[in-house]
């Protein structure tokens, strides 16, 4: 099942734990590589192939604690990498918020964190990777060797082959804790000036918006700015205990508890609780980097049918129009927006990567009879704003929207077919998008 609950499939799944087992599939057999299985959209199944899990290929192959260079197998989880690197004063700056997501998954989806404006996407951390493809064997990809394939594989949705291992450049930790400061904002449009104002003095930066309120204060909320808090005498780490969740666990409640009334109530309660609490909070790095570890109940509220997470990246200059379009358009659908959050991006667009410069806005809403129409409306809004929808967040994103929004679509498709004419590595995403 995809993490958003939209796609369920019964497929043949293999769980190799030795390298020779990876090579045992017939050379021309279509296959799908599966890491943690936490992609919202079905990037790791859904093409009626043999799914090969990578969870047992999770070993650290080398670590240079002087220079922060770590080599690992692709199934290594972010949480385990964190536990290896932080005691030596290193961390991985560009990472998504759940500790059981794998390094291979981060590379294939070109993951980002709450600091894109400073640290970019995951690719920036990758110095080299080993890729297996039955027709090509094991290839070592770097920016100098097989550079085109390196580019195609980072953010390549796992379609170029199986990433076996990666060499990553980590960043120095400047303190064992993260201090987060809260700043109020009166409406959605204020996100842009505030994000830009705080960017030069922040390490991490994001906003939260209440889209349940209408009128002038639509999208009011908070900006959170975080930085390391240099402290001595404190142990690195802390807060690493958490309850694992899978896509199946997420959907264990039959009913969705989020409707317009409860969502408005939850949002109002969150707002009140924030205003009542201190403006400054201090979290361990683990708690800050992996907020989802402690908040899995939020995803369970969406029930078995699941959720949409619509994540879009729009140019700064389009954001005001986008906010106006949402203010006007959202009430028409009567679908509650459970979460709205913005981040600042400073990067370059290329291929099918969710990267570029602008404002990244994520909207969570429950999957229901009308939610597809709302998602379709958002497709239009993004296209109007000359933005990008995030492919790995959306299980229904149509091919035509991707073709229209991603100028690199055709180049990616052609390059992929040139490298792999039989198109062995597939997923629901590749089938839906015609890759």
């Amino acid at each position, binding site marked *: 099942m995809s993490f958003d609950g939209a796609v369920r499939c019964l497929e043949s*799944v*293999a*769980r*190799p*734990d*030795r*390298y*020779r*087992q990876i090579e045992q599939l017939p050379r021309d057999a279509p296959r799908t590589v599966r890491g943690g299985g936490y992609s919202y959209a079905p990037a790791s199944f859904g093409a009626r192939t043999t799914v090969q899990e990578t969870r*047992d*290929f999770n*070993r*650290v*192959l*080398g*670590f240079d604690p002087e220079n922060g260079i770590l080599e690992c*197998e692709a199934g290594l989880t972010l949480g385990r990498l964190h536990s*290896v690197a932080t005691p030596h004063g290193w961390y991985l700056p560009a990472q998504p918020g759940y500790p059981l997501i794998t390094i291979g998954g981060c590379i294939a989806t070109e993951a980002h964190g709450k600091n894109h404006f400073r640290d970019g996407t995951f690719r920036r951390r990758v110095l080299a990777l080993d890729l297996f493809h039955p027709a090509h064997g094991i290839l070592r990809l770097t920016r100098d060797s097989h550079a085109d394939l390196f580019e195609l594989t980072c953010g390549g949705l796992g379609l170029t082959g199986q990433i076996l291992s990666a060499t990553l450049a980590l960043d120095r930790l400047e303190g064992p804790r993260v201090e987060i400061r809260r700043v109020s904002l009166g409406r959605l449009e204020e996100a842009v000036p505030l994000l830009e104002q705080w960017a030069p003095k922040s390490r991490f930066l994001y906003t939260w918006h209440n889209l349940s309120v209408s009128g002038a204060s639509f999208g009011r909320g908070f900006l959170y700015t975080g930085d390391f808090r240099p402290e001595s005498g404190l142990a690195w780490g802390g807060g690493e205990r958490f309850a694992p969740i899978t896509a199946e666990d997420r959907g264990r409640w039959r009913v969705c508890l989020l409707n317009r009334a409860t969502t408005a109530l939850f949002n109002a309660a969150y707002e009140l609780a924030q205003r009542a609490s201190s403006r400054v909070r201090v979290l361990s790095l683990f708690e800050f980097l992996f907020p989802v570890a402690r908040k899995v109940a939020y995803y369970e509220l969406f029930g078995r049918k699941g959720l949409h997470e619509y994540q879009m990246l729009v140019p700064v200059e389009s954001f005001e129009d986008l906010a106006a379009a949402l203010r006007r358009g959202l009430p028409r659908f009567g679908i509650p927006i459970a979460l709205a959050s913005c981040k600042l991006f400073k990067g370059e667009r290329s291929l099918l990567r969710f990267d570029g410069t602008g404002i990244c806005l994520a909207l969570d809403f429950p999957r229901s009879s009308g939610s597809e129409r709302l998602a379709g409306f958002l497709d239009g809004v993004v296209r109007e704003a000359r933005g990008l929808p995030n492919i790995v967040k959306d299980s229904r994103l149509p091919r035509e929207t991707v073709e229209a929004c991603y100028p690199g679509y055709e180049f990616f498709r052609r390059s992929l077919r040139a490298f792999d004419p039989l198109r062995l590595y597939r997923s629901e995403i590749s089938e839906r998008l015609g890759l």
Partner: protein
Amino acid sequence: MTCVVVGASSGLGRALAEELARGGHPLVLVSSDARDLLPLASDLTVRFGAAVRTVAADAAEHAGLAAALDRAVPPGQPITALLFPVGAVEQRDHGWLEPELAERLVRVNLLSVSSVVGRLLPRLISQGSGTIVGFGSVAALRGRSNNVLYAAAKRSLESYFESLRHLGEPRGLTVAFYVLGYLDTQLSYGRRLLLPRADPKRVAKRVCRALGRERGRRYIPWFWYPAAVLLKAIPWAVFRRLNS
């Protein structure tokens, strides 16, 4: 101080290696494929600071394996424990396996263990201490039309360990034999089973906690003990009607 794990690169063997490394033991790890062994050794070195040596050798070539291991543990270096989470199954092991495959099953499941023990036993005896740990399977509790030779080899192994205990205990050795139920490994993945699977990591913790103290035959998970008593008590007239 050194612990030797034969069959270390996957499933229970890998979990045992990890648990022993966590406990600060220098390790000698044996597996057939260096591609699996070297990443494991690196991982244990980085994560636990363990001193790890590796021996890539096919367990079916048991004489060569024993000699390679003998070389890997230099004389004078005390051996704390020999652990044998080694094994092989054959999908077509239904009673008429080709002789080469049948021989391979016996070599990997029985002779690899006896060859290594035979080679290192004099050293253990001269140390006057040391632990030898073998692993059996509930598949060998009763002979069935499935895993025919595998079960036979594992039952032989159990007998071998009983003899080893008889031989070793008066000379200061500790000999333990664990009969394992279903483990959550690549072998059992996706199969419908009668009783729950045990997490290899938990089994490894359990075995390492009792290393050097526990002796004789034990069942892991514990509920396989009453299950084994029941299974063995079922009269043949009833047992032969049971599926596979």
